[in-house]
């Protein structure tokens, strides 16, 4: 069933606010417009990639004028950075708040993965925006993508037990795991099917646990996801 966000039309484009006197407070409009621009940035970048996204496309996707956009952000880069910051903050908060009741670290990781996938399934463009588009843009955006991914994996594995084996070896394993996680999520949103993201849960859990508890145990714990 097609999910439709509030305030969007059938194509998922954000509706324009009514013009003129609409009885909405100035603060509401301001917050609303900034959020629209963030949503517009996610949609535009997910569709066109960073390089081929223009300020005009972001404004169009947000349903605001370019002039309005320039009231908030001077450049495309500012739109993108603000979007990354907001997304990262919200996601990390959501992850930090999940798994509180779960007993044991593995169960916490399973709960966090489920929170992550719910978060992303609500708008799979977030995966395209944050994990698919950055490597194709290169430079600073790619760097931002790497730091986002590292922060996300840190939060997913927070409170982990001491890893087995030598510290340098584990560090390398953890780093590779980030690349694997990005690939699994990116692969899931390439398929136009809402269920695909949720299906990645066991694989993500296994990837997150393996460097700390070994592959065999990780596979067993992942089966519960």
């Amino acid at each position: 069933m097609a999910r439709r966000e509030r305030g969007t039309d059938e194509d998922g484009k954000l509706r324009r606010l009514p013009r003129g006197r609409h009885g909405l407070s100035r603060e509401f409009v301001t917050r609303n417009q900034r959020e629209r621009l963030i949503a517009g940035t996610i949609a535009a970048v997910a569709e066109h990639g960073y390089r081929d996204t223009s300020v005009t496309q972001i404004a169009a996707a947000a349903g605001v004028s370019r002039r309005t956009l320039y009231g908030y952000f001077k450049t495309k880069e500012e739109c993108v950075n603000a979007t990354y910051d907001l997304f990262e903050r919200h996601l990390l908060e959501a992850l930090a708040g999940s798994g509180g009741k779960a007993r044991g670290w593995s169960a916490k990781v399973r709960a966090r993965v489920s929170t992550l996938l719910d978060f992303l399934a609500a708008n799979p463009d977030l995966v395209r925006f944050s994990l698919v588009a950055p490597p194709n843009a290169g430079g600073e955006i790619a760097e931002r993508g790497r730091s986002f991914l590292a922060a996300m994996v840190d939060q997913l594995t927070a409170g982990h037990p001491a890893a087995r084996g030598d510290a340098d070896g584990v560090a390398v394993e953890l780093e590779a795991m980030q690349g694997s996680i990005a690939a699994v999520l990116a692969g899931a949103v390439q398929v136009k099917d809402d269920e695909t993201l949720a299906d990645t849960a066991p694989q993500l859990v296994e990837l997150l646990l393996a460097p700390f508890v070994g592959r065999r145990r990780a596979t067993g714990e992942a089966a519960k996801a």
Partner: protein
Amino acid sequence: MPPALARDSVEKRQVSQKVRSEERREQVLGRMTDVFAKRGYQAATVDHLIAGGKISMGGFYKEFDGKEDAFVAVYDRVMAETDERLEGAIPVGADWAMRAAVGLRTVVELASEQPLAARVVMLEAQTGGKLALGRYSATLQAVATFLREGRAEGEASTLPPSFEEATASGLAWLLQSRLAQGRIDDPAELWPRMARMALEPYLGAARAEQMVRSVSG
């Protein structure tokens, strides 16, 4: 006397001209590799490629359709060299595990020796337009397909279907994050860790370690 050995035979002259023009092309591609790596695909212009590649404008457009075509040629040259190195390094008749371990060692060492070429195929290829991205994805997929052969080793019954794609991306990630910072400083420490990671799911920890040790020697 075979004609090829005859002095000043027409054939010999044709062959040597062809060899010379291929050599020249190789040299131009080698220099253009550095241009793409240092400037980045997006920022590099045909003017940069002409100046850095030491080739005339006419010569450039005789060889290449434009920037993207030149990039793909650079990519293919680097990969051809990689294939040659792999062929030379992997012993005849080596089994899957040996090929995997020697292959990883060879690729990491080559990427460490030639950081600019490695940058082009591992990082810039992702930013280089549809053709280049297609090449990059195909390379990654080939690695995943090769790793999947390891399932025949017997340990791997519970792996998810896209396990190898995730592994290939993870291994690539290790090289990419180092190349993005500059270069790979620790090939001798890095490749055994990568090889253990790649082999362990199929061979178990003990056999993976044994293979890594035998290739380290």
